[in-house]
């Protein structure tokens, strides 16, 4: 469960995320917020749907390439409990829609714009996520 601090890989990968967000905004005028891109797929017209699906399709393609580039050195380790996975997934799905954004939309794009709403949202989800991890690992001693 313990992972190594990899600041250089973090900065480089983060820079690529910022580059992707910048290109999407400058070329297409869209915010690279994953939860917004995903959420607006359902009730929209086809001209608005295709670019969203294309962006989302790029995520696993890019990740597979990135994993290959790094020989998957940064690893992959995930919880096994199906109940936990379902609850977490549902909370992430509902929460990001209600709060209009996730780590990318608020944490990167919104904060880069200096949006107060995004700064507040980012601080909020960082705190509740940190408390959740604290409770799971240090109070309940599991996960």
């Amino acid at each position, binding site marked *: 469960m313990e992972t190594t601090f990899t600041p250089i890989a973090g900065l480089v990968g*983060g820079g690529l995320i910022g580059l992707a967000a910048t290109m999407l905004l400058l070329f297409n005028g869209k915010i690279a917020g994953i939860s917004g891109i995903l959420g607006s797929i359902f009730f929209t017209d086809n001209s608005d749907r295709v670019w969203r699906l294309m962006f989302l399709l790029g*995520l*696993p393609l890019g990740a597979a390439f990135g994993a290959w580039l790094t020989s998957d050195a940064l690893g992959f380790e995930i919880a096994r409990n199906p109940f936990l996975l379902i609850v*977490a997934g549902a909370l992430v799905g509902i*929460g*990001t829609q209600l709060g209009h954004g996730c780590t990318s939309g608020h944490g*990167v794009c919104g904060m880069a714009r200096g949006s107060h709403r995004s700064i507040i949202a980012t601080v909020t989800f960082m705190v509740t996520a940190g408390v959740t*991890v604290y409770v799971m690992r240090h109070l309940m001693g599991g996960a």
Partner: protein
Amino acid sequence: MKNIISLICGTVFGIGLATSGMTNPAKVLGFLDVFGAWDPTLAFVMGGALLVSAFGALLVRGRERPWFADNFSIPTRRDLDPALIAGASVFGVGWGLVGLCPGPALANIGRGNVEILVFVAAMIAGVFAYRLIARVRALRTPKKPIGY
């Protein structure tokens, strides 16, 4: 053109997630576990992303329209409403339980890992349920358009 650019942007985004290690839920949890074996990597990922996209925000400022579209779709709301705080709180709990937010969750679907598929299915169900309810509500009170 618009769609090809989207695919390229999504792909670059995915490369960034994988090379920064953010596709590994254990690494994200390691960042959130401030009182445990803390792994500060996520702060560097966010810092790198913010640096570049803040530069991007400067590039966009003053431009009338993007290169390949008619206008910028940038959120304009400035008020802090309860939904923003409630939504961010709920999202944070879900994020902290497993260490997956929407980007890395979707980026991992090609792994052939059943846990990822279960999480993503639940996440998409949550997104769809919320949007469906919002849609039904909007149809009942036809005042302002939904979506952002």
